[in-house]
């Protein structure tokens, strides 16, 4: 999907901006909705948000970049996440990270150049009784073993 670059392409955001009365206070809510609508926060999108909220560009990018959940490039097709909350950490999260890195040929925090897959960590999903946890494309793997994880990764669509 080509990323819209012209302001008129961000029409879907107008309702969101209206709902929040174009208030700078709602910047984070608006960034959430922007990312939901357009899958990531491109420069043109951030510029559009800044203009509509009458905020300086650096203020918008400075705020967005503070929060880990905002993306500035298109998300990978497959998103692999390892939970590194305390319960997961003491029950084998490191081995799962190793298995991920090895199987995907990526370092933690990286995204493959062609956008096929990304590897990241999350600090606690809050369902610690099932530690250690992984999350692949939104599906939770509970009490995950490294071998099971390797098999799962092999099945990812190319």
């Amino acid at each position, binding site marked *: 999907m080509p990323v819209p670059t012209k302001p008129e392409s961000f029409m879907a955001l107008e309702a969101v901006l209206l709902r929040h009365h174009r208030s700078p206070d709602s910047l984070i809510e608006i960034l959430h909705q922007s990312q939901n609508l357009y899958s990531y926060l491109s420069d043109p999108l951030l510029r559009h948000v800044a203009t509509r909220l009458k905020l300086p560009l650096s203020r918008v990018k400075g705020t967005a970049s503070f929060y880990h959940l905002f993306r500035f490039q298109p998300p990978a097709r497959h998103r692999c996440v390892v939970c590194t909350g305390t319960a997961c*950490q003491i029950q084998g999260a490191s081995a799962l990270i190793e298995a991920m890195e090895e199987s995907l040929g990526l370092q933690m925090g990286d995204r493959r150049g062609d956008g096929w897959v990304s590897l990241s960590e999350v*600090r606690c999903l809050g*369902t610690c009784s099932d530690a250690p946890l992984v999350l692949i494309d939104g599906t939770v793997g*509970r009490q995950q073993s490294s071998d099971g994880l390797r098999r799962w990764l092999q099945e990812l669509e190319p």
Partner: protein
Amino acid sequence: MNGLRCCASAGCLARGSGALIGALETAISRAELGDRIQLRPVGCLGPCSQGPLLALDPDGDLYAGVGPQDAETLVAALARRLHQGSDQATPLEWAPARGERLDLRAPFFQRQRRIVLEHCGLIDPTDLEQAIAVGAYGQLERVLQGWSPERVLTELQRSGLRGRGGAGYPTGLKWATVARMPGARKVVVCNADEGDPGAFMDRAVLEGDPHRVLEGMAIAAYAVGADHGFIYIRAEYALAIERLRLAIDQAVRRGRLGPALFGTGFGFSVELRVGAGAYVCGEETALIASIEGKRGTPRPRPPYPAERGVGGKPTLINNVETLANVAPILREGADWFAAIGTAGSAGTKVFSLTGHVRRGGLVEVPMGTSLTTVVLEMGEGAPEGSAVKAVQTGGPSGGCVPADRLDTPLDYESLQALGTIMGSGGMVVLDQSTDMVALAAYFMAFCREESCGKCVPCRAGTVQLHGLLERILAGSASRADLDQLETLGAMVMDTSLCGLGQSAPKPMLSTLRYFRGDYLARLEAP
């Protein structure tokens, strides 16, 4: 009439309780028993490590490890018993294929005292009528119709309730301070940014009984003179966010939130604000900045939020569990609450019991209950063939309690004396396989990553401390490095701008205090 309550909280949902609910619906309608068996998705039922969990009414039985494959046999067993003309007289002859009926006489259940969680697991959190049927918004109505704000404040102060977010500041005093502030527009904030890894108490409350929290906020607003509220919740809690959105909508439509509540002049509206992945936003001044749409960096206090908070207005910030205690305190009275727990720490505390423990999940116990009771009796200790080495409380701001100190009562002061904190309620059990230096490095990495970067000691100090810990782990550190670790740790604690930096060295210093040998064994030979 039989009732089936199936846990639909995030833990059990991940274990397939959604499919179980679907299968039960099908089986019930196929057996044409829709009018004799009521199926309800409910909040957390407790022992999450054994989910999916299913409770049977009126028997009160709790089944563990129930799967969709069990739906047919369960409904058939219920049908048989119903045909015999009884819905309870005889115990149900049924057990899940791969699960079991839990023994409710076990300490895990017997030792609990459910106040915050009293309706969690009983009602369908998506159904306001069920919440109202068990008393939701009843205390708000009662207060609005006859109590002065001062009387609410007095009751709260007398109850001895202290903040459940970690610091343990007296809640009534906090309310009274905001109430005294001049200004017609004040704000109430519910801090639901439960960021400590290994903690999920607030998630469970919000997923299982969201109206309880909204009622607490509205009562707080009446007491301090606020007309608007925010709930700041972490984005990782998708289900809790969904349930809260629904609960707010329902409450507004049913006249429990909004203008002129219960025919009085008092109005209160609530807005949901979703975080975006920043642990530091649990710190109250950072949380305010984030609600205002800014970088979540803390600022020095004073001015405290009570004086100048969201939008410059006097602001009351309470944690989820604190607010969930408000309605029962008003319902049963301050004396009743004060009599539970210990003299300095009244009431109960919810803990999320996880890690190397046989029976994990959500437990609510009176303050003052010992760690032995919670970890060894209720949690049944470490898994087979292992033993408990320590218990971590308070997350990245807390510390460890070693196995030989498990007789410590769970109250604010006793935990502090051990070098840890009550914290928000995360309780991670560590068995002998746990590398304490690695654990310290883990928490330091966490703080390094979550530091906002504003003040120098936290931004650069956590990096250096983490580097030193990594060096010790790699076996290439000297005695001088260990000394430096302690000196720099103390400096970061003393000089950082906010609570994150001020407590970042705590998990490390705590392991140094109780497991120094683990460190010394890794130093290079001199």
